[in-house]
């Protein structure tokens, strides 16, 4: 890069050689060396670095045709930077806070040519590419966080694949190499399962658990506990690290909790609507009720044990409708403790893990809103914040 001082010397030299016709301008040249009376000093170009992932930050995907995952500071509403993420990519955050991992697919000639699937590793403070870890394949779908999850210690990455056979690719993030593919027919939505491997929801209504995924990769299925075709569970589950418990919501609003382990134990479900004082919602047509829905319908704050669910009025099979209210469910008490009305329908929700949580919601026009987690008061509004899925560090 050219330095400014070199450039300035060049200008002065050129002016000095230009002859009397330029005396008026040349006379200006020495003045540039003098101290500016307004304190405006010559500058150098440089590049920012940012802090390691913070508890109050939100990560917002650009959307279907907008690359990049923007980082917003929830307190100020200001952008901290953008992690380079391509279309249909998935992001996972290193629990140690050193890296952002992007699972992505690109082609050698733009929309054609050789397909390349990889995990791109970015330094969390410089946001510069550290390395790429090639993988054999991955699913091409948008709007989900459950297609790329990490083990609790950050050693292993599990990347969901659909080719169209269903499988999971296991990556050793410490050695930065692909390890193996575990075939997992009929299952998806990867759930962390510390000390075991990972689990997943299956089309027969069971939960599959893969023990030692990088080694023997033994697959076991628990008993069927949900109706995968008639009342499916949203893949957008919540996970409580301290309690090692996953929390699921079905299309009708049934809430299940699963104590993770070698043989996860799923609780009997309860109705979200009933927890708010209504009759449980049903699958029958013409039955208008509050239903959970949208692209990313639930987020969880482990400190308070509260699940934040986007709800809309409608009929069954309206599970992608954007939310008009946030229902805050105290999961342990099985009670909806707050209902936060939204100014406009939103498609994604995420909440920070702080004791005083912040909520981020966005709509299809990419407008982002940061809300107070207790009152729902709008603290910041960000135009073109991103219309895609939202994450937080150490999030649900």
């Amino acid at each position, binding site marked *: 890069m050219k330095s400014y001082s070199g450039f300035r010397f060049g200008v002065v030299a050129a002016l000095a050689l230009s002859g009397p016709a330029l005396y008026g301008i040349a006379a200006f040249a020495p003045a540039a060396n003098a101290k500016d009376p307004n304190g405006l000093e010559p500058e150098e170009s440089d590049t920012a670095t940012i802090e390691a992932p913070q508890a109050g930050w939100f990560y917002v995907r650009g959307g279907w045709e907008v690359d990049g995952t923007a980082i917003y500071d929830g307190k100020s509403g200001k952008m901290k930077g953008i992690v380079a993420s391509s279309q249909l990519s998935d992001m996972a955050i290193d629990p140690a806070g050193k890296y952002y991992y992007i699972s992505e697919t690109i082609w050698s000639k733009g929309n*054609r040519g050789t397909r390349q699937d990889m995990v791109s590793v970015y330094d969390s403070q410089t946001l510069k590419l550290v390395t790429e870890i090639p993988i054999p394949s991955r699913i091409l*779908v948008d709007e989900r966080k459950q*297609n790329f999850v990490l083990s609790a210690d950050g050693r292993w990455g599990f990347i969901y694949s659909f*080719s*169209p056979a269903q499988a999971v690719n296991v990556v050793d993030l410490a050695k930065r190499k692909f390890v193996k593919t575990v075939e997992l027919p009929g299952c*998806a*939505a990867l759930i962390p399962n510390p000390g075991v491997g990972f689990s997943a929801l299956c089309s027969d209504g069971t939960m599959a658990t893969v023990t030692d995924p990088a080694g023997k990769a033994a697959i076991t299925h628990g008993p069927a506990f949900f109706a*995968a075709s008639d009342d499916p569970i949203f893949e957008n589950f919540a996970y409580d690290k301290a309690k090692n418990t996953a929390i699921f919501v079905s299309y009708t609003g049934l809430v299940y909790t699963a104590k993770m382990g070698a043989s996860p134990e799923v609780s009997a479900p309860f109705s979200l609507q009933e927890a708010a004082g209504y009759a449980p919602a049903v699958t029958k047509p013409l039955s208008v009720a509050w239903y959970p829905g949208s692209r990313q319908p639930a987020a969880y704050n482990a400190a308070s044990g509260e699940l934040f669910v986007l709800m809309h009025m*409608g009929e069954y*099979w309206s599970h992608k409708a954007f939310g008009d209210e946030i229902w805050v469910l105290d999961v342990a008490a099985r009670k909806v403790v707050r209902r936060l009305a939204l100014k406009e329908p939103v498609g994604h929700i995420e909440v920070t893990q702080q004791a005083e949580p912040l909520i981020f919601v966005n709509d299809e026009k990419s407008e982002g809103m940061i809300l107070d987690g207790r009152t729902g008061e709008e603290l910041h509004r960000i135009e073109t914040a991103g219309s895609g899925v939202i994450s937080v560090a150490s999030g649900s």
Partner: protein
Amino acid sequence: MKKFDADAVCEKLLRKQAGRTSRRSLISRLGIALVAAPVFPLLPVSRAEAAKPDRSPEAKTAFARSAQTEDDTECTYWRYCAIDGALCSCCGGGIHTCPAGSEPSPVSWVGTCINPDNGKAYLIAYRDCCGKPMCNQCLCDNTDRETQLYTPQLNNDIIWCFGTQSMQYHCSTAVLVGGAE
């Protein structure tokens, strides 16, 4: 790019099966099946026939109640009960036709939609057209019986451009496969 070759997969499976099965054992198994046939329960079939599907407005989804058969460039067109994406009918293609320069995916997700003219349900294959940028016209997202990735054939978010020259999503068609009842 590695392509999904259904022919090769089926051939491999059949050859494997043939390799494990002798002609005599096949005839023997067929014989057992024929002898045992009367014992097979016919009841579920009879029950299915007896229980005619309820096509009253009360039994129809919100989409089915307002579906129409006239205009396939509208999201309310009856075959679009579980479509997600840009309608190829608005992109220079048609209900089962990919726009010029794009290529239909051989595999797809499916929907079961009711034709309001005759009240019958039909199986619809939502085949993506691939290899050109997103058409961005007539964007629809209908979700009758649409589920999650663990039941991929009923999920409308997946890019289904398998076995095509390019996996870039362009638009979606709604190909009538046949009656669903």
